[in-house]
Every structure is written in structure tokens, then in C-alpha cells.
């Protein structure tokens, strides 16, 4: 069992770390966030130049064909510096949904890699997380329905939308994927910012033209595989973030004085930091195993669900403790630990909450 990154993977992590430090460092963070989408576009262009955007895209589609471990290395850096660019949604998740999806899909995939186009997946409906909770209907290639949440969709040029080409809400088949242009007639895009400064949207589709991706009725397996790939990337992000929050807290308790001593001398503080570091260790090990399993080509999907549950738990707990041990300043905007907490809370909701993945784990491991 391999845990360490290869030299090339290590270089990816280091370059992401450097990029994060230069572009999204803790000190300049608030100013950068205040720049809004413009600043983010600049960073996106720089990421394209570094070749990051084409890293996860298959070679057949003009990408570099990077595997889950390469993506994980990069995402750790994203997590450490809380970079808000829509990397997983646009470069990992959407491409996995679109792979082998036809001419238009290939064309767009190449453009994603160059940073010319942004794509977001819009799969979720009222229910939230179940792949089968789809009511949006496709009459021929025209779509009608509501998508309650598209991760990082606010600035997307295209959406990958799931719709029913057969069956009814809750049925386990009859679901297809379509490409929908953000400016398509009949499409209403509602944009939202989340508390971690990501930019999302919801969609209202009213007889909107779509382009079928791949074969009709067969999207469920493809969605599940793509979601696992995106999940693992987010796990690496969560690990990067929790380790950074722990390191910042460790520094802080060594310097903050109360009652004439550094608060790190209080045993209760030491024990909390120990719990945080154990959670980091546990999460890193689990993330590596999950990424390697995905890379093997025969992923252990129950393991990935398990990793998602446990790493989310650890990530939120670590960030909460980081805030707690900083005392009042931990709750301020000024300090990066509060940003780690917000990101961890949102990571806990992306592509399903813990209950959803626990249920998946049960279903997959009982099967």
C-alpha cells in the first residue's frame, strides 16, 4: 500500500501551495475575496497557464489524463489556502460526466482545459442528494424542471443537467444527462454566494433546449462514477484545510498568553490539539486509501462513502476546535480559521451529506 506522493505529485502539491500562498495567503485573503469574480477569473487564467485545468481531463479529450492521486495532490494545496476557484466542479466533476459524451462534449472539454469555458453540474432537486430524485423531464431534447443547487454554477457557461427520459421521481432508471447553455432560452439562473465565498446557483428550466450526453436512460452509473471522483478530490481538499487549521492553531496556542503562560501549557488545550492531529492523521490515511482505490480502476465504493463520512466529521470537528482554541479572534473574519470552518461546513454538504453517504455505505457494503 502506497501512501507517499511520487515526485511529480509532490511537485504538483508544492506548486499549488506556492500559488495559494501568493494568491490567497491568509493576510491578503479578505482583500482578495472582496475583489469578487474578477479576481477569481485572473486566478483561473493563471491556473490554466499552469496546466491545472486540463490535468483531470482525459487525454482523448485533449487533457492530461491525471488520475485521482494527482488531483488529490493539487487539491490539498487548494484546501490549505482555501482557494475558491471552482476546480472540482468544473475540471473534475463535469468532465467526468461528459467524458465520451459526443462531439459537443469533446469540444467543450478542450475549452475547459484552456480556461475558456466553465461548466457546472446541475443534478440536485428538492430531495437534495439522491441521484434518483429527478423530476426534471426531457421531451425529446427539451427540458423542463427545477434544479435546486448547482455547485459553483453562478459563473458557468454551460450546465450538465440530469433529466428523466423515462420512469418517475425516485425510479432507479430512465435518467439521462444533457448539456445546457447558460444563455439558453427558457433557462432562469438564480445565483447565490455561500458562506465560504463560492458562487452557486439554482436553475429553473422551462422547455429549454439541451444536448444529450452519451446514451439515453443510462446516466446513473456515469453520475455515480463521476461523483466518486469529485468526492475524493474534495476529501483531499478537506485534509489540506484541516491540516492548515491545525497548524495555525498550534502556532497560536504557543504564543497566546493568558494567566501569565502560553495557553498551550494547559493540558485541556494540549489534548484538544492532540485530538485534532489524530483526526488529521486518520483523514489523511483514509483519503490516500480512497484515492488509491479509485485509481485502481475498480474502486471500492463503500470505502469512498466511508471516507466521505469520516473525513467530513473530522474536518468539521477540527475546524470547530480551531475556532474554539483561538477564542474570540477565532470567530472573526480577519482570521483564516473561521474561513476553514465555513469551508469544512460546506464541504460536508457537497454531493450529499453524511446521512446520505452513511446510507450509501450501508447499501454498498451489504450488497
Amino acid at each position, binding site marked *: 500500500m502506497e501512501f507517499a506522493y511520487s515526485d511529480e505529485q509532490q511537485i504538483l502539491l508544492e506548486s499549488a501551495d506556492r500559488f495559494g500562498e501568493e494568491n490567497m495567503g491568509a493576510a491578503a485573503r479578505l482583500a482578495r475575496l472582496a475583489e469578487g469574480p474578477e479576481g477569481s477569473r485572473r486566478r483561473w487564467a493563471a491556473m490554466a497557464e499552469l496546466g491545472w485545468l486540463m490535468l483531470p481531463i482525459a487525454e482523448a479529450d485533449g487533457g492530461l489524463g491525471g488520475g485521482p492521486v494527482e488531483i488529490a495532490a493539487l487539491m490539498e494545496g487548494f484546501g490549505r489556502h482555501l482557494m475558491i476557484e471552482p476546480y472540482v466542479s468544473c475540471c473534475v466533476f463535469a468532465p467526468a460526466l461528459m467524458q465520451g459524451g459526443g462531439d459537443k462534449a469533446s469540444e467543450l472539454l478542450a475549452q475547459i482545459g484552456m480556461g475558456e469555458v466553465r461548466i457546472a453540474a446541475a443534478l440536485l432537486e*428538492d430531495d437534495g*442528494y439522491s441521484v434518483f430524485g429527478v423530476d426534471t423531464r426531457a421531451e425529446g431534447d427539451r427540458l423542463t424542471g427545477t434544479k435546486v443547487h448547482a455547485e459553483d454554477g453562478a459563473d458557468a457557461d454551460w450546465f450538465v443537467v440530469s433529466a428523466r427520459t423515462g420512469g418517475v421521481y425516485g425510479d432507479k432508471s430512465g435518467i439521462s444527462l444533457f448539456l445546457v447553455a447558460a444563455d439558453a432560452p427558457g433557462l432562469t439562473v438564480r445565483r447565490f454566494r455561500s458562506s465560504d465565498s463560492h458562487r452557486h446557483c439554482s436553475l429553473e428550466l422551462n422547455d429549454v433546449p439541451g444536448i444529450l450526453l452519451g446514451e439515453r436512460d443510462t446516466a446513473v452509473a456515469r453520475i455515480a462514477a463521476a461523483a466518486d471522483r469529485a468526492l475524493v478530490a474534495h476529501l483531499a481538499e478537506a485534509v489540506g484545510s484541516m491540516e492548515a487549521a491545525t497548524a495555525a492553531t498550534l502556532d497560536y496556542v504557543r504564543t497566546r498568553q493568558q494567566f501569565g503562560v502560553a495557553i498551550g501549557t494547559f493540558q485541556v488545550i494540549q489534548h484538544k490539539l492532540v485530538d485534532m492531529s489524530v483526526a488529521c492523521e486518520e483523514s489523511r490515511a483514509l483519503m490516500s486509501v480512497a484515492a488509491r482505490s479509485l485509481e485502481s480502476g475498480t474502486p471500492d465504493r463503500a470505502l469512498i462513502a466511508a471516507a466521505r463520512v469520516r473525513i467530513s466529521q473530522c474536518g468539521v470537528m477540527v475546524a470547530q476546535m480551531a475556532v*474554539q482554541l483561538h477564542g474570540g479572534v477565532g470567530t472573526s473574519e480577519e482570521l483564516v480559521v473561521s474561513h476553514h470552518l465555513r469551508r469544512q461546513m460546506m464541504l460536508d454538504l457537497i454531493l450529499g451529506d453524511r446521512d446520505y453517504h452513511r446510507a450509501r455505505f450501508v447499501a454498498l457494503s451489504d450488497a
Partner: protein
Amino acid sequence: MTPSLAPDDLAFRDEVRAFFADSIPDDWKTTVRSGLRLPPETLTAYQKRLADRGWGAPTWPVEYGGTGWTPAQLSIFWSEAAAADAPPQFHQGLELIGPIIFTYGRQAQKDFYLPRIITGEDWWCQGYSEPGAGSDLAALRTRADRDGDDYVLNGQKMWTSYAHVADRMFVLARTSTEAKRQQGISLILVDMDTPGLRIQPIHTLDEKHHTNEVFLDDVRVPLSNLVGEEGMGWGYGKVLLDRERMVAAATAMFLPQTLRAVREAAKRRRVPGGTLFDRPGFRSKLAQIEIEALALQAMVMRLMADAAAGADSGPRGSMVKLRWSELIQQATGLWVEALGPAAQHFEALDGNGKTPPDMPLALQGALYSRVTTIYGGSSEIQRNIIARRALGL
């Protein structure tokens, strides 16, 4: 929780219930349930309404304009308020400085300040914490030097909640440098519009403006603004500690509001086969928090019974604070979970964006709740107090 009530108490309950039935506008309710405070103007209007009814200061003795209610009446009042989605009253004047003034203040201070607290005319803020003095409050460095008929205050306060809307601040400052850190600290009342006082907002993770830094730069206040005796300010904190169990008790009684919001969000959320609320797993999680909330209420009742019997409740106030803060964190966390993906929609970015009615309150509530295990004495400090006072460790 419905403990058995005596006939008098039953009548009282009906009276309180009737009052709240037509005193709480609908648009207050969602904010209240999130555990966030209503805007100051609204809270002031609410305070006035209570004062008009004679209920402005539920926990105060009658001679200072309070209700003189028994603990049973108090807990009925809070339960009914919570059930009606009324907000908790703002505590800094009512529970923190008011009681210190009526216990240690001179007559002129009682006559002037107490009625203004009850009617909501004065909004108070607490200027205790400093950048270097949080858990270790005795490390405070703000100075108050005598100069003629005035004190001249210099220093910096931090985390001064609502300083930006307050009319007055009660400040702990050093009036002499004694060997023992707790000595030489005095409690002084400052009008917020005094020259030399500057307020700078602190932005917190929930993106609401609650709290501030306050800079005191040659701020002159008359010597008569001293409360009690010079150099004895630290000791008055003991009354405060005692009163804080009231604050903890009152806030704990409002926890069911948040749990109702969680229920409603879960009932709205459709999942295959019904709503989220129909899922046994979710119900079980909610039930667990509801059960712990009931246990907390039982603790509050016992605390109130102590108070009625005039017994020292020891560190029970700390225990209530500890448990309440943990439960509000769990409850708001579950609320976010109940909202599902919509919980990521914190703020609409364009005109046609519509968030569900309890978003972003749920998330703000969940984020803000992290503060509850830090302010008013962090959980670590509360545990230290319990270890020392209850267990003698």
C-alpha cells in the same frame, strides 16, 4: 416541559400566554428561532412593550421597578415567551449592569439609570475584555486616572458587543497598580458619546455586525460615574457571576424555538418516499437533541428552585451555560442539515435569487453559535470553574 402548576401559577400562565399571543409580529419569529438577535430597534420596541405591561424587568425586585416574580413565575414567563417565538430580552442592561447598580450603586445612579433600562431608553454594552485580557480578565490594562473631578480613561476594549448601538458602557479599568492583579480595578459608567471614545466594528464569521473594538483616548467622565467603591470593581463581578446563571437559565429556556425551526425545515424538504421529517434516522437525531434540551430545562428548573430557596446554586449556572451552548450548536447544525443543498445559498447574488425563508438565518445561526462556547466565559473556563467549585480539584 410542563411541571405541575399551582392554581395561581395556572392563572399567571394564561395571562402571560394571552399577552404573547398578540405581542409578537410574525416577521420576528424566524430570526428568533435562529438564535440570532433581532435588530436593536426591534428589541427596544419589545422592551417598551413589556415595560408598559409592568414586565420590563422580570428578574428584578419590586422596589427597583422589577416584577418580584417567584422562580416558578419566571420560568412560566420564559417558557411562554419561547413558545410564542418571542425574543429573549437583551441582557446587558437588565441582567448585567442593572443588578450591580441596584446592589452597589449610589442613590442618584439608581434613580437615573434603572428606570431607563426598564423602558429600553438606554442600551448598555459591557466593556470588560481587552486584546490581552479575555479569559484572564484580571490582566486588563485600561486605566482610569483621577484628574480633578474626572476620571480620564485610556486603553482599548475588545469584543464590545453592540457598542455601535449602545448609549452607555460599563467599563472595568485600573484605578491603581496594586501588587495583586484583581485589586485596583474599578467599575465606571461611560456615555458612548463622550469625546475620545472611538468604535471600530469587528466582523465575525456569520457576517452580522455584533461586536466591536472600542478605543478610549483621554475619555473624561465625572468621578460620580464610579459604581460602588474605587478599586473594588473586581468584587462586583461576583454579583455578575451570580446573575449570569439567570442569563444562562433564560437563554436555555429559549432553545425549543430553534428545535421547532429544525422540525419545520425537515417537514418542507421532500425526499423520495415523503419528507425528510418522515425519515426515522433524521427523527432520531432530532429526538436526541430534544431529549437533551428537556434535560437542560430540568436543570434550569432546579437552578430556579435553588434561587427560590435562597440557596447557593454553586456552579450550576456554569453547567447550564456549558450544556446550552453545546445544544444550540447541535440544533443549528441539524437545521443546516435539514435544509440540505439550499444551506449553501447564503446570499442571493442577483435580483431573482430567492433563498428559502429560513436561509441564511439557519447558517448564520450555526456559525454564530460557535461564539457561545467562547463568550461569557469559554467552555474550558466553565469546566475549570466546575472542577474547582463543585469538585474541589
